[in-house]
């Protein structure tokens, strides 16, 4: 500690930080004011980050909403105010309706697979089995690769003439040859398989950590009360895991709103916009067709959708943050 004190005093001397009384430890009564000085430094050091977040997150959100109310639908910026005209146009757009349908398909399929399989895998891994580390490593491995890589692999696997269909054929199901992500109506469900392949390991890791946190006595107490495995899960474990399930719903829900990467490699919008998403619509409107105001309207809509997930989530966080 002496060494430390010596060094830090030097540092203070160099930078001229603290008001001089602070250095003397005998005058500890004066520390509150001394803290004020350092508190000010802390705020000043944080200031660039505050400004960056204020500009790149909050100002940009406001700016996006603003662009959604102007007539900027060409390469030349046009900030003529048109009110809600872009919003009305968006809400009556056929492609937007399909995108909303696809969002529901995707959210249900993706969230369902991630949460159900994530929970099952975590529960199975929590049974003190051998090789747990190996299984866990394999289950989480897809989360280390990008959405683009996931899309490339699954596009090949979901080729109607080969891939998974080839296995079906060899198992004797020659008549069951789905067109997967190129199905004009249900293509989105196929995409969720690929997306859930990548993300389920993450949800599993969350559940596994939470299961480890449930005291063994609690499970044993349930068993003594005569509860079987199912009853223990039904009445003890699943209720205790509700906070994790809530987290999982928020994370997978956010992913459903912004899904973009994986679709780029898996055939884009697909036939009849079967695998089109808001993110795709936004990207093409803005950077393909230079309809900035339309793009900004879709963006704003996506922000509003996300707010339904982010706000309750951060509100639930508050208690934990303010320890």
């Amino acid at each position, binding site marked *: *500690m002496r060494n*430390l*004190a010596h*060094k*830090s005093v030097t*540092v*203070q001397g160099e*930078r001229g*930080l603290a008001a001089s009384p*602070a*250095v003397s*430890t005998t005058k500890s009564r004066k520390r509150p004011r001394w803290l004020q000085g*350092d*508190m000010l430094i*802390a705020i000043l050091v*944080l200031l660039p980050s505050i400004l*960056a977040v204020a500009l790149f*997150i909050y100002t940009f*959100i406001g*700016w*996006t909403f603003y662009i959604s109310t102007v007539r900027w639908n060409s390469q030349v910026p046009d900030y003529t105010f048109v009110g809600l005209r872009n919003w009305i146009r968006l809400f009556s757009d056929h492609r937007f309706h399909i995108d909303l349908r696809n969002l529901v398909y995707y959210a249900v399929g993706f969230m369902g697979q991630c949460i159900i*399989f994530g929970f099952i*895998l975590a529960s*199975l*891994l929590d*049974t003190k*089995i051998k090789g747990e580390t190996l299984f866990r490593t*394999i289950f*989480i*491995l897809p989360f*280390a690769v*990008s*959405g683009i*890589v996931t899309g*490339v*692999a699954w*596009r*090949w*696997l979901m080729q109607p*003439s080969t*891939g998974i269909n*080839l*296995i079906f054929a060899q198992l004797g199901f020659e008549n069951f040859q789905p067109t997967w992500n190129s199905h004009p109506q249900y293509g989105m469900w196929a995409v969720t398989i690929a997306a859930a392949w990548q993300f389920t*390991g*993450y949800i599993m890791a*969350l559940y596994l950590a*939470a299961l480890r946190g449930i005291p063994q006595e609690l499970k044993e107490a349930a068993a003594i009360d005569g509860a079987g495995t199912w009853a223990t899960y039904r009445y003890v474990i699943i209720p205790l895991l509700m906070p994790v399930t809530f987290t999982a719903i928020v994370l997978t829900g*956010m992913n459903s709103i912004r899904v973009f*990467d994986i679709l780029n*490699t898996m055939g884009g919008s697909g036939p009849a916009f079967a695998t089109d998403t808001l*993110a795709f619509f*936004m990207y093409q409107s*803005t*950077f393909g067709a230079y309809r900035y105001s339309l793009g900004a309207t879709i963006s*704003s809509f996506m*922000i509003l959708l*996300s707010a339904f997930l982010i706000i309750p989530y951060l509100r639930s*966080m508050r208690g*934990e*943050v303010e320890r």
Partner: protein
Amino acid sequence: MNLQRLWTRGAIYLVLTAFAAFYLMPFYVMVITGLKPYTDVNVTRMWELPRGLYFEGFIGAWQRVSPNFWNSIVITVPAALISSMIGSVNGYIFAKWRFPGADTLFILFLVGMFLPYQGILIPLVLTLQAFGLYGTVPGLILVHCIFGIPITALLFRGYYAGIPNELLDAGKIDGCGFFGIYRYILLPISMPAFAVVLLWQFTSIWNDFLIGLVVLSSPRLAPVNVAVQNIAGSWSVEWNVQMAAALIAALPTVVVYLLLGRLFMRGLLAGALKG
């Protein structure tokens, strides 16, 4: 009872193995297809192992994506380092210098973690253009650093919150100020947190597609995932080359994950806040 237990165990292993096979299947297909010569990539023999090790797919893929691979390194390494350093200082402030309103401010930071990037893309492009950073590597690094502020602050804040205040008080008595406490008390014991955050930032910046696509789309400068998408998007490229390119793009993050899996897990759990 014992027999029933044996059955249950057996069933658990069976299910886990089936899932493991499912999760490895795409990797298997990518590897075997990437190692086949083009003439052997056949829809009817897709699942068969290659007749030998043919690297023409990987050579072809490397020729196409190697400039982008290096670009990704030039982008990802500095961005991960800088954002981790910023996150460390911010986390220190949020954990240990809780000025009035600090917690509310922290929550406002976290919004940036969950926001769909589409919500800020247009102003982002306009702003980068105004500062001459659009379409440049430094511009993309800057963007990744800024969008890394929330998650890195969160991870470091969690780590520093676990360090007892008494330790800091001792430092204060010894005359440490704001910087002294950070430099001589927290920084020396921050390495585990740095490892987790660096790994997390490296993985997410490397795997980013949308921001790279929008900010740095020129084919020569684009990050590797954008290049892989360009290859996959043009139907003229052979499947074996596509698979090899995808594997090359996946390699750094997969290797890092396999080597440092435990740190990766810690980042995963902390990233979801409730871990």
